[in-house]
Each structure stands twice: as structure tokens, then as C-alpha cells.
């Protein structure tokens, strides 16, 4: 039953497999549907925006386009990155507006079988539950699927 609902959400392909770009954030593995990812960037020069919500890291110039950078750590209430740690970002689009999610590291592209999918455990933190579509059981670890639209929709609500 749950599987069915999830299938709708993920706009399932016939073979029951989903492709995800995996990203690391404070040691946690997260997945973003591969089609949602526009760019993967190394560390960029980011212009901070005073007065903006704290999870808005600033704005950056991506080939002449202005992209709003979101600090995913702050968005998900994770501790701030240590200064010496490297950072990368993943550019996604929400309502035709580009956003760059600041993350620690980009992993690989995984094609995962639907059978590995489970809904969010009830014990998950409310903030996480909101932006995670569910969890994939990988062999050695667990991967939460990031709902990009939810992530930025709620940010809209917060901002407004």
C-alpha cells in the first residue's frame, strides 16, 4: 500500500528503478532524483545576503546567471561545516528559479530498486520528515531521498 503511494510520488519508471545523485551531508547519505540536478559545482564564491534567512547562504554567479545558494546543513538543522572542510554544491531548479544546495560532497549516481524503499520512520525529526520522501535501504548504509520542491516550498513559507 505504502509502496504504491510512493510510486506515484516518484513518477515511477516501468522497471521499478530510480536514479539518484547521492550527496553527503554531515556524514549522512542523501539522494536527489537525478533529473532534478542541473549542475554539480565545486566551491564557489558566494556573496552573503545580510538579513536573509540564515539558511540562505547567499548568491553566486553561475555562467552569468544569479543562483541563490541554500545552506543545506542549516536548513536541516545540522552543525555548521568546519572551516577546513571542503564544500560542493548541487544546482537544482524550483519554479524556474535556480538554487544551489551547499553540501559536503557529491557521491555517485545510483540506480535503486523500488523494493529497497521505505517510508520515513516515525521517529525522524520533523524537519527531516518534511523534506525526506523516504529511505532507501542500501547494503552498508541508508539513504534519505530529498524532496527538492518541499525543501524550497517550505523555505518560501518560512520566508513569507
Amino acid at each position, binding site marked *: 500500500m505504502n509502496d504504491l503511494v510512493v510510486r506515484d510520488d516518484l513518477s515511477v519508471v516501468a522497471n521499478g528503478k530510480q536514479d539518484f545523485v547521492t550527496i553527503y551531508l554531515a556524514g549522512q547519505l542523501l539522494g536527489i532524483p537525478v533529473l532534478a540536478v542541473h549542475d554539480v559545482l565545486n566551491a564557489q*564564491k558566494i*556573496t*552573503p*545576503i*545580510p*538579513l*536573509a*534567512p540564515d539558511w*540562505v547562504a*547567499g*548568491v*553566486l*554567479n553561475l555562467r*552569468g546567471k*544569479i543562483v*541563490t545558494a541554500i545552506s543545506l546543513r542549516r536548513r536541516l538543522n545540522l552543525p555548521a561545516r568546519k572551516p577546513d572542510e571542503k564544500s560542493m554544491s548541487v544546482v537544482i531548479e524550483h*519554479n524556474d*528559479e535556480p*538554487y544551489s544546495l551547499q553540501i559536503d560532497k557529491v557521491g555517485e549516481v545510483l540506480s535503486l530498486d523500488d523494493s529497497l524503499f521505505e517510508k520515513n520512520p516515525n521517529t525522524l525529526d520533523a524537519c527531516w520528515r518534511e523534506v525526506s520522501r523516504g529511505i532507501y535501504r542500501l547494503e552498508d548504509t541508508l539513504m534519505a531521498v530529498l524532496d527538492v520542491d518541499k525543501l*524550497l516550498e517550505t*523555505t*518560501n513559507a518560512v*520566508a*513569507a
Partner: protein
Amino acid sequence: MDDLLNEFLTETGESIDVVDVEIVKLEQDPSNKPVIDNIFRLVHTIKGTCGFLGLPRLESVAHSAENVLSKFRDGELEVTQDSVTIILESLDCIKEILAAIEATEEEPEGDDSDLIGRLDAIAAGETSGASAPPEPSEPDTVEGEIVDVDSGRSLKPGEVSLEELEAAFASAPGPEESEVAETPAASDEATSGSLYDRIGGEDTLAVVAHIISNKLINHSTLSAFFGGQDAEALKSMFMGLLAALYQDQADVAESVGGHLTNDASFGDMQFDALTAVVSEAMKECQVAADFCDEATMAMELVRDVATSAAQAEVAKKAKAEKSKASAPAAGGDGRKITQSIRVSVDLLEDLMNMVSELVLTRNQLMQICRNQEDNELLVPLQRLSQCTTELQEGVMKTRMQPIGNAWAKLPRIVRDLTVELDKKIDLQMLGADTELDRQVLELIKDPLTHMVRNSADHGIEMPNERLALGKKETGTIRLNAYHEGGHIIIEITDDGRGLSASKLIPKILEKGLATQAELDEMSEAQIQRFIFHAGFSMAAKVTSVSGRGVGMDVVRSNIEKIGGTIDMSSTEGKGTTFLIKIPLTLAIVSALIVQAQGNRFAIPQISVLELVRAAEGSEYEIENINDAPVVRLRNRLLPLVYLNDVLGLKRDDQSADSEEDKKDDGTTDEDFIVVAQVGSYIFGIVVDQVFDTEEIVVKPVAPILKDLPIYSGNTILGDGSVIMIIDTNGVAYASNAGATEQESEDQQEDDVTEKAMDDTDSLLLFRAGNGNPKAVMLSLVARLEDFPVEDFEDSNGRYVVQYRGSLMPIVMADPSMTLTDKTRQPVLVFSDGEYTMGLAVEKILDIVEAELNLNLGSATPGIVGSAIIEDKATEVIDVTYFLSQAFANWLEKRDAIDESSTIQKPRILLIDDSDFFRNMLKPLLSVAGYQVSAVSSAQAALDMREAGVMFDMIVSDIEMPEISGFDFAKSVKSDPRWSSVPLVALSALTSERDLERGRAVGFDDYVAKFDKETLLQALSMQLKIQGDAA
């Protein structure tokens, strides 16, 4: 949509706009022949085109309007307001239909018989029955010109050659004529007739022509020449050609043959092929072989003309000329010779965006190059830069349109209003050819229309009202547009009734936009600005024209949306002027790049007035009043806002109390002040560093940042970094100093007067001596100074300080206080003419706006009384006392003190041109129990008399500009309204002769100016005398 229909809609729309304007012109000058001709021509064109496109409803309306216009033109009908109104109505009807066509591509259903009936009635009105002849004939001619007789369908573009054919037939004996001749000829033996008859006449030819056209379109070589043409057109052409040939009409045949094709490569080979096709067609139609050969031979007659490229060229030219003459039917060919083309706005927008990006990239390249010396890229880059600049200018120019386009509808609107409201209004438009970006133009069109409408509706009075006020019967609304420093300024001025603050106040209170107390503090100009608030309507009642309350606030927000500003000034009874300042273009703006706490920001130049460098010990120094930073700029205090504070960044100097800026790196000790203007509010934004100005392309911020009013956008700089663009409106708002709370420089002067008349005052609070804070009216304070303690010198037992090249005596604000033990001593400087003194205080606390309601008199010298200010008992000091302390000769002390009667507050009118005295006497008199109104001139006092204000006593200065006290007294005594009011003169002129003169003109008493006790005594005595008399 069909291209032709599209073209028609655009063209007709333009024509209608022109007619709108012209008609109004005509009404003003009915005998203007060129104007009538122009209108008639335009309406006629519209009508003609409608018929051509098969739009009967539109055509009939235009036709009836044209009838009336033709009567105007011929002088058969007089141009009256009624007739013009109906013509305009019909134009509106046409517009409506056009709009519907644009939306649906089809003519809407509807009945215009009423309108047409009225139009016809007007046309018939003067000359009954005369309307009949033109009516039936007109549409017919139109139809005849443009509808293909054979097919009965309307023409498409590219078929001009057909029309040419028709003309050829018309000029020569054509088929119709030959038909007449045919009948007898046909009765003869077939062999004896012309080839035309022998082949089988028109019927056969029609079939042959049909076959030829079909063959040609599918022919391997000839289709290249004829394939592009319509089968019907080809058929008609060959029909005409063959008929002419076989009837031996050589000239007609040549003319038609010359138009077979315009292609210069149509040579002998092709002609041979064509002949073969004709011959084949003949055979197919079973024309006898002999005739067939003969017919084919006849084709040779037109070989030369058909193959001659030169001939084709001539024909083409002739055709182009003709198609130009018959513009509506001309279709495609006519456009080849026009000098301008229509380009879709979207394309221009795209171009503009691309160019903007190009400029940015160019800037980036330049920046990189600048950092590298001896770069081989430098020269080509320079060239690229130049090209880019020119390209940018060029593209900008394509978007530029004269502002007159936005105004085109205004004469009509004003004209309609004059009829509807029964007013007389003259609309003047200056600078209509001032060009600005079409995007901007579109955005200001509606606000402008709205404002003109407003001016006409509420601004201009009714004619009789105007006459009664001594104005010209006809009101004037003037639009003026001009360039000024990269901006367009648009002024909208009317000479109407102006805005009345007193009428606005109840509205403001009703809408809850401000409290009475707040309003009391405001100047008239500030109150007038409430019209820019949402939901505020100027109209006393809602008319069909305006007054629904969606007005000036929308105008303001629209103008601010495009980075413009709007300001107004209005004098009641004289008129109103709106001043709109808008940028030339939206895409690229010039911005000042500043730095705050290591971050760079852009401030659009439009809001920047000037830059001031402030540093310790320099001419400009940032000072604090209770942590509120200010700077003196040309003898005015400029409120300051730290950009760091507004942005929530840490300020450099952590100790706000001291003004010493301690930079982190310790290198500079200076700040830059960006003097910005929002509306009429001028303030300074303090930034750490100012870089240069840069042309930037404003890009909107991401939606999640939309609710940060402090940013108007962001942009990419030449070095590729992204920076935020600061919205000065947002800064002003964030610093909690809305534009309406402050006044502009030029209003400040009026404001002193206003303030004096109001019951509230700006008070400077300070601490000196005992626990209670003390207060003094801010308007009395000339400057705030902060002297190092070592500057204080002892002279004759008093402190003096060297100040501006002379010695300034310093008086302690409280006898119990001593000079501060800190390094710097705050001092309030008071100044009256040549006298300048300093009042040493312990600490300056704040500046507050408060109602100065002195409830306790005071026996303590130097204290006028106590008042509750900010919930604290505060002593208000008597500056005159301290002045007399500092300068023995300033005031001669007198002893007499008498308690004035305070039973019911007598009203006193105080007239003095010196701000200082007004401000000094007002609290003095109010503590003595009088209700004081203070004005700065005798004229203002007389105005109050006109307004019907009554006083119990008038205290007037003698020495005043314009109307002196003596003249004032004369006019007071000569008018019954105030003649019985006691009049007390207050003057520095105290000679016996002056006293005599004063009494002679009607002053009841005469008091020396600086003698407050005598004044109070005199006042109470005068009131008593009057009370006894009453």
C-alpha cells in the same frame, strides 16, 4: 492570425488614435481645413479596408461616420460639440469591434443601428435627403475596386498583378465590349471571324486558361516561375492574355504578357515551353489543329515582352507605384519600398537582454584585462568594447519612443471630461518628443492618464467658480517632459484648487492613517502627501471619472516599481504640481558600489544626491544625539543610517557613545556618507568604503528573498561577483524614518512657521543639575557643540570658549553644575543676531516631538515651567534668561512681576518675523496662561482674519519685512472684524517718537521687545481694559 488582418488591426488602431486627436483639434478650430481633410482621409481608409476584409459591421459604422465628416469637409454641416461627440462615439464603437476582432479574429455580433441612425440623422440634419446619394454609391465603389469579378472572393496579398489586369481591361476594349461584338460575329461563319471567335470564344478560352494554369503549376521547369502564384490568378491572367491575342489587341496583350512573370531569368527556352503548354492545352480542348497552330503562333507576339527582363523591371516599378497608391489592397509588394519595418516587441526585448549580457561580459573581460599588463588581447578587446557600446546604444534606440505616444490619448480624455463635467480645460503638452524606453513608457502610461484625469476632475474648478476666484475661466493642465541627468522629468501642473489639508484631515482620521496628534505635528505638505496612501481618494464624491480610492497610491507604486520617484507640491487655491522622475531605461542602471563590513553593495545612482567623506577632525564629523548619528551638512543636520546596522552587520565602532571610529585594521578613521533621497526625505547612509560607479543590469532577486524590502535586485559585476542592490526606500523604511515623517529641505522653512502654529514642538532634552531632565525647544538651538574641556577659559569669572573666531560666553544650565570631568563638554549654542552663547549641559539626552503643555509656572530663574515629556516631569528652560546672563546688555532687567489672569485662556495672536522670538515668546506666553498662535508675517495674520479666526489680543512686532507693524495696525483697525481686538506692539524701537507713532496708528500698548515681565503685564492690563469695556 492572418497577417493581413493583423496588419489591418495595427494600422487601423493607429489611424483611430490619430483621428481621436485630430477630432478634438477640429472641435477647437472647426474651420481648419487640413485637419478635416486628414480625418476624412483616415476614416475613409478605415472604411475602405473594412469592406476589403469583409467586415460589414465595422464598415457600416465607419461609413456613416465618414458621411458626417464629408459634410464637415464640404462645409455643409457645422462642426458642433454634439456632432463631434457622436463621431467620437462611433470611433469608440470601431475600437470595440477592433478589440473583439483581435481577440476572436471574427467580427463580433452586435447592432449599431442606433449609432448609425444618429450619425445619419446628423448627416441629414442640415440638408435633409442629401444623405441618400453618397450612401449607396460608396460601398459599391469600394467593393468594385477590390473584389475579383470572376471569383467573387476578396484578394490576397501577392495578387496585385490581377488588379493590373483589371486595369488593363478597363482601359482597353475588354471582354465585356467584345461580348457585345461577339453576338453578330458569332452569327457569321466561324472561319470569317477573328481567331477569338473561331477558337470558340470566351467559354473555350476559360477552359484553356484553366488547363494552362494547372499545367504550369505542375510543369517541371515553368513551375519555378508560375508555381508560386494562385491557380485562379494564373487562370485569369492567361484568359486575359489569350483573349487579347486572339482579338488582335496587341497593346493589351503586350501589357499582360509583360506581367506573365517578373523573373528576369524567364528566357526564350522558358517561353518555348510555355508556348508548348498553351498548344497542348488547346489540343486538349479539341480546338481544330489549324486554329491551334495559329493560336500558338500568336503567342510569339508577346515573346519579346514576356522574356525581356528590362520590360519586366519597368512593369514591376510601375506596379510598385500603383500598389503604393492603392495602399490598403497593396499587400506585400508595397512594403518593399517603405523605410521602416515592424518588429515584434518580444524580439526587441530578447535583443535587449542579449545586449545587456554582452555588456556584462564585456565588462568582465575589461576587468580581467585591466589586471594584466601588456596583454595582446587589449586592442581587439577595445574594439569589441566600442562595438558593444554602439550596439547597446543602437538597441536602446530601437526601444526609445517619444513620450508623446503615451500622451496621445490625453487630449481625447480631457475633452470628454470637459463635456461630462462641464468644465473648460486647456491641455498643454510640452516636450512630447522626449524619448524614453518603451518599457518605461508602457508603465507610466496609465499613471499619467490617471493623474491628468485627476487634475481635470478634482483639480480644475467649475468655470463660474474660477471666475469668482478671479482666475481665467479656462483651466490649464500642463504636461512637461524633459531630460535631466539621465532621467526623464515629467511635470503635471494644473492651476486648479489645489489640495486642502483641512479637507484631507478628516479623511486621514477616518481611514485611520494617522492620529490627530500625529497630524498636528505635520506640515501641510506632509498632510498633502497622504494622497499617496492606499485607499485614499481626493474626490469629495465618487464621480464616474475618478474618486474610487484606487488612485495615487497605485500611481506611486507603479512609478516606484520602475525605479522612479514622484513628488508633489500644492498650494490651496493656486494649483498642484506633480513631479515624476523616472530612469531613461530599466535594463541598465548606473549604480554606486559601496562596501559595508567587507561586503559590497550597489546603490542606484538615481537615489544618490551626493557623497560626503566624514572623518574625525575633518569638516564633516559624525555626531551622536542619544546614539542617533547625525552630520552637519551645510548648516543642516542630516540624519544618518549606518548601512551595517540596517543590514544587521556589526558596526566598526563598537562604542556608539564615542564618535571615535576604531577600524579593525586601524588604517582609516573615516566613513563615507551617501546622501540619499527618498521622496522628499533626505538622509545619509554611512558606509565603510565607496568604490566607483558601474553600469549594472538589474536582475530580480530569488522569490525566497522577495520579502526583503532592503534589496531591489541583484546583479553581476564586471569582476563576475554577484552583489545585492540596495533599495534606498527600504533603507529609509528599515531605519524607521518614513518619508512622511520628515521634510525636505525647502519645506523646512515653512515648517518652522507650521510648527509654531501647532501645539507640538521638537524639544531637545538634556540633563543638567538635579535629577529632572530639562528641555528646550529645538528650534531655538542653533548648534550642538562638543568642546574639549581644556578649551574652556576663565574670563572675568565666567567661562568662555573660542568659537568661530570669537569668544563665546558659556553659561551653566543649572547653577549647581560644574564643568564635566570628562574630556569633552557638550554645549548647546544659542544665537540671536550678533549674540551667541553656549549653554553647558551635562548630557544631551534626546530629541522628542511633544506637545509643550506647560502646566506649572516656575519661580526658579531660567525655568519657564514644567511639562510632562515622555512621561517625565521636565523643566523647560527660559533661553532669554540665559541670554541675559551671558550678555548683560541683552535684556534689561525689570522687577515688576505680576501674575496674569489664567481663568479662561485668552487667545493671543503673536506676529513676529523672527523665528527666535516667536519660539521664545510662545512658551513664555503659554505658561502665563494664554493660548498662543504665532505667525511669521503680518500677511499671514491678515490671512487668518480672512479665515475668520478671532483673538482676544494681538501682539505684533513693528520691524517686519513687506508689511510693517504700523501698516498692519492700520489695516486691523480699519476692518470691523478685528478692530476691537487690543493691539500690543512689540519692538526694539522704543524711542518716544516710535511710541507716539504706534499709538497714532492704533496700537493700544507698546512694549520693548526683550522685556518679558512688562509684556505680560501689558497683556493682562489690556485684557482687563477690554473686559471692563465689554
